């Protein structure tokens, strides 16, 4: 405790980085090993029951299945570190190139969706906490329940019907103009908006009960200063955690939205790959998804340490 706060951060960070690397290693083993440790020949599994023996044998060799398992895994890891993730069995493109081509779309969609969800969730969550147990709060509760329960693909489909087909305000699907991102981003934002809203409300209610808020009120601070500077800043820690956790898994959330709107991101790539049993691509997207989750968790922790000086020593 006597050491300066920030001096301990590097050691802790190093330990976290080590756990992060171990988790990624285990996840890569899981993704890589699952198909090879299952009974049966993966090449036969991927090629499908109708494939000819020669095609299966070619795939067998292409996937490197004729070498010892640990050797295969070692080569895979070495390649992965260098950005080589194998070749797609469908498009015959390097998986790394496929991922790089699709990733920007998911990143843009995810960032816009989370910008919408965080702004709306934090704003309305704060208002609900300030008006606790009043009509606004009740309505807010009903809305967040609805937001986390709505089937996103259904909402997206209905939004397409209304705004693209009937009203013609927005494009139906695909890419090409800034307007193309609007409907998918709103669809992807629904669930996180509900979660962030709930979290903000709960956190703010906790904070508003504290003595320092009463002090701030008693000394006559303007409501905006009380809620903005004193309350929200203290309520932010759980909000940042949940935004970080969910933003990391955005590839998961984007799977359905991207497929529905023909948005060429990683989620749509994954669904295509699963349909065609393109295992190198599946493997690549899964690894990127896990990496995103783990890295975002770490970033969220760092952000929290910056927001809350008490946690820097924990």
């Amino acid at each position, binding site marked *: 405790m006597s050491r300066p706060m920030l001096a301990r951060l590097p050691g802790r960070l190093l330990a976290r980085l080590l756990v992060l690397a171990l*988790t990624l290693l*285990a*996840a890569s083993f*899981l*993704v890589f090993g*699952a*198909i090879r440790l*299952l009974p049966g020949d993966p090449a036969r*599994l991927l090629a499908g029951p109708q494939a000819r023996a020669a095609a299966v044998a070619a795939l067998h060799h292409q996937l490197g299945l004729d070498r010892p398992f640990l050797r295969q895994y070692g080569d895979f890891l070495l390649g992965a570190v260098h950005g080589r993730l194998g070749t797609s069995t469908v498009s015959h493109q390097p998986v790394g190139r496929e991922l790089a081509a699709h990733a920007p779309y998911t990143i843009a969609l995810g960032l816009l969706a989370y910008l919408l969800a965080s702004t709306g969730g934090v704003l309305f969550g704060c208002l609900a906490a300030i008006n*606790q147990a009043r009509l606004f709060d009740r309505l807010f*509760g009903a809305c967040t*329940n*609805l937001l*986390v*329960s*709505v*089937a*996103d*693909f*259904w*909402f997206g*489909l*209905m939004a*397409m*019907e209304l705004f*693209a*087909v009937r009203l013609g305000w927005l494009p*139906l699907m695909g890419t090409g103009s800034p307007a193309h991102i609007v409907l998918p981003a709103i669809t992807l934002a629904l669930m996180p908006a509900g979660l962030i809203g709930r979290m903000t409300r*709960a956190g703010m*209610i*906790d904070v508003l009960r504290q003595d320092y808020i009463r002090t701030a009120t008693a000394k006559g601070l303007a409501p905006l200063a009380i809620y903005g500077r004193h309350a929200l800043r203290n309520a932010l820690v759980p909000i940042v955690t949940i935004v970080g956790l969910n933003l*990391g*898994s955005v*590839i*998961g*959330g984007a*799977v*359905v939205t991207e*497929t*529905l709107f023909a948005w060429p991101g990683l989620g749509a790539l*994954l*669904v295509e*790959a*699963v*349909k065609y*049993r393109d*295992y190198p691509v*599946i493997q690549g*997207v*899964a690894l990127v*998804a*896990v990496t995103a*989750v*783990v890295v975002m968790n770490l970033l969220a922790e760092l952000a929290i340490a910056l927001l809350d000086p008490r946690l820097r020593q924990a």
Partner: protein
Amino acid sequence: MTSRAPGAPTRHARPARGPARRALASVARHPALAAGAATTLSLLLLGLFGPLLCDLAGADPLRQDLYHPFGGLSLRHPLGTDAFGRDILTRLLFGARYSLIEVAASLTLSCGGGTLLGLAAAAIGGRFERLAMWFMDVLFAFPGIILALLTVSLLGPGLGNMLLAISLFSLPVYARLSRNLARGLRHAGFVEAAVSIGAGPARIMLHHVLPNIAGPILVQCTVSAGSIVLSAAALSFLGLGVQPPMPEWGAMMSDGRNYVGAHLLPSLFPGLAITGAALGFNMLGEGARARLGDDPD
């Protein structure tokens, strides 16, 4: 966070006179819980008896009437007909049964397996506990639907494989929860008493600890039921779960999706059913959590 013990009388509680009045008072105090319970109960009844009624009325979810596709709302077809002239209401009722099967099977696998693993970890402790929990962390690092797609890509699409996939990604939730709850009870009086009379770890965990941690685990089950309905429907919608022509709600939507812009009804109603079912489970779960007293409000 209130410090009120679960089940302790609240300030507002007055001695209620009859069971009916007590139930009414409880509904007024927890409207979301009551609405969630009512929705879930209706889903249960519709799934159990709806298909039987359809059989009695001679309605078949798979019978096609290719001369009358995309029928509007009518007395004969209250919710219209789809692209193959099949009655949408009949298909929705049979679909409710699919949802119930999905929820029941996934919960049995994930909650059963996860809780057993968590209890075993708490009972055995040491290296096994650390390793098991770390493995759960690794599983947890996969976004749920990615893990499900990975599983389906290995095992192939279909109801059973989809259920396995969905169970796999909620396994860590139950393992962590039950392990943490069980560890919290390690020094409880009744556990130490059981240890002192020579009960083995399995007996202690299953007979003494499990009944005492069942409450929070059941609440978690209700909350996950909502996401199970949504994930299963999403996977079927993507064509990786239950396959058309079976009347699963997600599969119905993947059919209806092809006609959006021209015919709305075949995708409108299944989506409403999915959202309604998920909303019911979520409200029930959130309400139950608030009543258990571990919620801020």
